[in-house]
């Protein structure tokens, strides 16, 4: 018997509290698979957000820190500056990263902090009951936009990849999706690239994942995957926005050798 698919070691056995069909489960698994494949589990510190994934530390089989709402990039900065040999990733939702944490993520990206960000974009605040997010689509009904997001009142949804890609500091910035098996395969490859770049101490890495929230969108999990394709993908293009380019100038600044253990 050859195993074609099984639970990754970097995931615990604990049944998650996520809603049926919530793509957090898929994304957790992809991150775990990549960490397993690269052999990084024992020197990785994950950072849990405030949001549905607040209990992520129960699902990943590795060291974790719980961050205050939006502050995960600051914690990751603290970890990487104090212990550059450790691998660190933040795992954040729309409110955590694009709302309250906007200053932290922009500055971490601008400083080129060498951790990996997994940004779960499902266009709504899930945990607190479905309020509007900076990423909520125009016209989308939420509990704090009962008549639909009015772009004349609160502006357009924020495209985080595009925003961060405008910074001069080198980095790896890409948007992926997980609403079909084909997209899941691609997402896994992109996450692997991001963690490899961190392992090799190259740059800031940011992976935005278009995700679903069946419960707060008011549809079945399968319908929610269709909604991503129809409504989110046209506005949030699934593509790379910044590749890490090792120019002579960058090469001179990046440490010559991959991070050593302390």
């Amino acid at each position, binding site marked *: 018997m050859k195993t074609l698919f099984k639970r990754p070691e970097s995931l615990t056995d604990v049944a998650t509290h996520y809603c049926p069909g919530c793509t957090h489960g898929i994304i957790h698994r992809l991150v775990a698979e990549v960490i397993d494949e690269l052999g990084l589990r024992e020197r990785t510190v994950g950072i849990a957000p405030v949001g549905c994934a*607040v209990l992520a530390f129960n699902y990943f089989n590795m060291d974790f820190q719980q961050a*205050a*709402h939006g502050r995960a990039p600051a914690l990751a900065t603290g970890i990487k500056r104090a212990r550059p040999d450790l691998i660190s990733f933040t795992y954040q939702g729309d409110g955590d990263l694009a709302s309250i944490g906007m200053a932290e993520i922009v500055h971490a990206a601008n400083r080129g902090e060498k951790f990996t960000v997994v940004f779960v974009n499902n266009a709504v605040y899930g945990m*607190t009951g479905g309020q509007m997010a*900076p990423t909520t689509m125009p016209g989308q009904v939420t*509990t*704090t936009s*009962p008549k639909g997001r009015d772009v004349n009142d609160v502006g357009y949804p924020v495209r985080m990849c595009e925003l961060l890609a405008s910074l001069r500091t080198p980095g790896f910035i890409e948007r992926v999706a997980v609403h079909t098996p084909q997209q899941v395969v691609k997402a896994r490859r992109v996450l692997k690239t991001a963690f490899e770049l961190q392992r090799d101490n190259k740059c800031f890495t940011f992976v935005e994942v278009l995700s679903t929230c069946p419960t707060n969108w008011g549809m079945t999990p399968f319908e929610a995957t269709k909604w991503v394709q129809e409504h989110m993908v046209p506005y949030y293009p699934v593509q790379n926005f910044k590749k890490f380019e090792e120019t002579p100038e960058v090469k001179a600044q990046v440490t010559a050798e991959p991070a050593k253990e302390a």
Partner: protein
Amino acid sequence: MAKVLMKGNEAIAESAIRAGGLVYFCYPLTPQSEVAEYLSRRMPEVGGAFLQAESEVAVANMVYGAAGAGVRAWSTSSSPGISLMEEGISYIAGSELPAVFVNIVRAGPGLGGILPSQGDYLQSVKGGGHGDYRCLVLAPSSVQEAVDMMPLAFDRADRYRGPVMVVGDGMIGQMMEPVEFKEPSFPPLPPKDWATTGAKGRKPNVVNSLYLNPAVEEELNIRLAAKYEKMKREEVRFEEYNTDKPYRALLVAYGTTARICKTAIAQLAAQGIVAALLRPITLFPFPDAKVLELGRKADFLLSVEMSMGQMVEDVHCAMGHEKPVYFFGRSGGIVPSPEEVVTAVKARLEGGKS
């Protein structure tokens, strides 16, 4: 007027609107997100302004801006969000702006839990943010009382030109009780001629809390202190319960905990033990004179709180060494049962600290 059955959070929202609190900024946070959700619907109906901000830090500063422009602005949050607002509240106090904040307290510290708590007492009454200031702090123990407090809060915020904090807890925010919206009247307020409404035909107004000249800064501090002295003379509010007969124990409790104590008092009475309750309604100014007066008639005082003991420090302060002051509480979001309070009272009666 007919009574309406409403959830605490929503009743507070409705009452604030009726009191003229037409500018509201917010950020979702359990257990008070329903205030925001209700107002996102209701505020446009009454021609007010509603905005969900990027964070509570932003919210407090939005309230500052709106209040500085002479408008009744307010916000709600819960413990971790209030911590973020405290910088803004300090600025609001220092700039002498009127503002109303409601804290639906949850378990802490840190991210804590979402269940009710009274662990923000010290934060609320001893300043909360940096610097020499206080908030007028009101503590409802029912949804009706919370509803009645909103017009009072807005009036006092304008009258004293400072922040007013209404301290509820997760229980009050979430439970549903019948409420009536009254229309209290207050003495006229002075015009807000200090507000930044556009310097047409007058000298410019500046809303500011920076005073580099220490003599001028001290003038502000003295001016603020005078407000708090006036509050201590004129704003103390409390309820005394079962004090009309001789009592052995004086319970001191506020908010949800006070209701539990009332049930405990009834249970104690059935066992032949008379206990009374002093329920502070203003946490600042604290009813210290009343605590002393009523405490003297008891064998001991018992401060009952949903915390590890915060108000008990003020009870101690008020009583001095005249009578023993004990504490009983539960934490973590646990609401004590009347039976637990009864046990705590009886244990002290038998002459022990535990």
